[in-house]
């Protein structure tokens, strides 16, 4: 069982959601985040004054999947979120030890 955490452009969230829907992934968590990677942000000018925009708005998508689905999900996200330009984001795959359903208290595998 793996947690797949994807940081994508805000305008790509709908595309990623659709792509994950097409491979019948049941659930996802979306969070508004700000940060930078290699893209590092830039300095913007407004009315003659520079201001720092190094922390760029991004969306973080989290899904937990069975080990055998990781490659398929990662591919789907990359395909949907890629523009080929700097700033497309990152995907992290993290092991998940246990998972519980709060309503019932039962332990689940995904």
């Amino acid at each position, binding site marked *: 069982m793996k947690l797949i955490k994807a940081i994508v452009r805000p*305008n*790509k969230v709908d595309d990623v959601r659709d792509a994950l829907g097409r491979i019948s992934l049941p659930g996802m968590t979306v969070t*508004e985040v700000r940060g930078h990677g290699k893209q590092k942000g830039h300095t913007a000018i407004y*009315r*003659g004054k520079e201001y720092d925009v190094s922390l760029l*708005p991004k969306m973080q998508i989290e899904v937990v999947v069975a080990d055998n689905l990781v490659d398929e999900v990662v591919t789907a996200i990359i395909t949907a979120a890629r523009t080929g330009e700097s*700033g497309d984001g990152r995907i992290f795959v993290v092991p998940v030890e246990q998972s519980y359903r709060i309503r019932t208290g039962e332990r689940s595998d995904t």
Partner: protein
Amino acid sequence: MATSTTAIEDARQALSVAAARGDGGAAALRRFSDAVDELLQQLCDAAPSASGASLVVALGGYGRRQLCLHSDLDVLLLFDGRIGEAEEQRVRAILHPLWDARFSVGHQIRQVGDFAELEIDNPEFLLALLDARPVAGDAALLERIAGRVHSPAARGRIFAALLRLIDERHATFNDTFYQLEPDVKDAPGALRDVWAARAIAALTDPALIDRGAADRARLDAAEEFLLRLRSMLHVEHKRNNNVLDHETQERAARLMGYGGGPRQQVERLMGDYFRHARAVSRSLQTVRHTAPLPVAANLVQARDGIQFVDANDAQRHPERWLSLFQAAIDTGSAVADPTLAWIEERVDAHAPEAFFPAAADRDALLAFLKPRAGLYARLSEMHDCGLLGRMFPEFQAIFCRVVRDFYHKYTVDEHTLLTIRNLERLATRAVRGRERFTALLDDLPHPELLVLSLLFHDVGKWRDEDHVDESVRMAREMTRRLKLGDDSAALVEFLIRHHTRMSLIAFRRDTEDPEIVRQLADLVGIEERLKMLCLLTLVDVEAVSLETLTPWREELLWRLYVDTYNRLTLGYADERIAHEESGLRALVAGRPADVTAAEITRFAEGLPRRYLQLFPADEIYRHVRLSRDMRPDDVHADLKRRGSLWELTVATLDKPALFSNICGALSSFGMDITRGQALTNPNGLVLDVFQFADQERFLELNPAGKDQFVHALATVISGQVDVAERLRTREESVLYRRRSGVTPTVPVIHADNQSSRRYTILDLVADNALGLLHRVSRAISRHGCDVDLVLISTEGQKAIDVFHITRGGAKLPDDAIAVMTAEIHRTLEG
């Protein structure tokens, strides 16, 4: 008549004796007043008859039966009909014996008809009428004028006059009743304040006199004490002198029976005086603060809010109902609940147009809609009582309308009003961290049109289909009824039609894609529309639910705004009007008869494309006409008023330092340039449009001012006059003078060689000052640069100007930019 005169002397003697033993209070003064009444009745009986009914009316202190020994005898001689010879004989027969009897008579002679219009410029007389009492003659005459004097509107005017008189009188005593030698009639806490407290209660709410710190018994006791003192002072001074000076204090204390030595007697007397004065002052203060306060014509501010004084008048004039809500905003209060209920009962009887039948009413409505503290609360009151929905039936269509989706948490009408509340919070700086958006709002020349757009942006949701087209259609009905100008109506329609566009782009599109930003810039065209659309988006998203507008979304919206703003102000120069431009073709197709297709094309082709969005077609045709028959030294100028500002349009052929000279000419007349555009077409034709404030009202006060100004402009542009010389005197006196209370800020100059293919761009933000544009552009010209395009704007006290410049037809190298910006810095920092 000798008997009467003797009776008056006897009455005087009796009052003197009573006063001298400290017993000249209300009862003694009433007896004296009654004696004077008797005399007047006898005089009236004996006087020749008037041609119609007549009446002698006691006024002021005499009207209250508190006539003191040497007080003026204030009387009104009232006649029913014209005052002719017979009336004059009667007046003489009444007044002469009074003068013979040593009365100082303050007389007013009036016909009943004179009271058709109240003498609002004579507040003392109006106040004296409050105590009017018939003495001799036909008392019905007084009843006939009483209705007018005591009408709600007259009461409001009298009340306002009374408050003004109280303040003026108190000011002459330095606003304190702790006077060592008090005037027992006029000082704060003295007799006039007793009467004022009672008058305020009588004019507004008689129960006030028994409420809070106001205390009828203490007021009566104070009055009795003060009357006794005043009577004694009249005896002591032998004239109408009411000052309790040190010398008189000793005698008064002794006569009024205070015990102890002379010093103790005085201390006890004055102790009592100050105790009574304090009671009077507190009573007056309480009555003043709790009395319904006149705040506008036919409006008072009562404890529970703003209400009409005369409901009958209000019922006849629905166009005045909005003034209730305007007054509530002005005074920071609410509209009284009973008044809202009153409106609710009657509002359906009127058509929408009845609420703004005249241009002044429509202007008042737009002024009311300016975002500021209280607007949301007042609009909500108007909505709750049905007035808003009656004024705008389109808005009533979304009353409690429920639209179920994943986002909206409120009914459509409340969501709409919340957008206006959010805008109000921006205007009042109620949300920390939103200053950048507040600055956009501050910069809008017509924020009320944004509120109007918000009010209508979702009205189309009354039906289930796509609401935007329907909202636009309904808004057109409204702008037609309001007779909104074409530009304003187009702006409102634009904002409503595109109210979801910016949130869609900011949150769902790749805003780092320059093409996305270009498309938005093309859509809005000019900065004002961008700012309004940005603000509309912000407050609209925020009004969806408490969770919708996250700081993350706010940041996305702001970055989209900045990128688009930069595109509009820095990148616009590269996009020129082409021969086949659709906007140009539309201009040619719709041209008036006196303008040819060729001259439109010759004039507009090659100007920045934003020109077509900046000016409506009629203005563009005017510019074409202005640019006709242009020879090298010609200056074609047009000056017209635009609301509180003036607008100067100049067409001429380009030459060195042209822009600097025009700005200098404006500044030399003390004009404060607030907005403007400077444009140059490829043929070297320059079109400059400036909006400015005529701070010294030169153009308004001088009939020949416009001609004088245009002539001076022409002489400066042609080089006949050195504008620097014209400005020198002003600069020495004003230029470096800091505005009081404004902390000077360091000017910001940013040079940009990237945003435009053709131009070096100088972006300047500095404290606004007279001659600023002239000095900056002069410095640019000194470096051999041509100023081809300029955007001028102000935001509060800040000037925000963007210059597009070239030297020898090319961008400037970096070292030249550095030298020039350093000089501009030196120029600005003095």
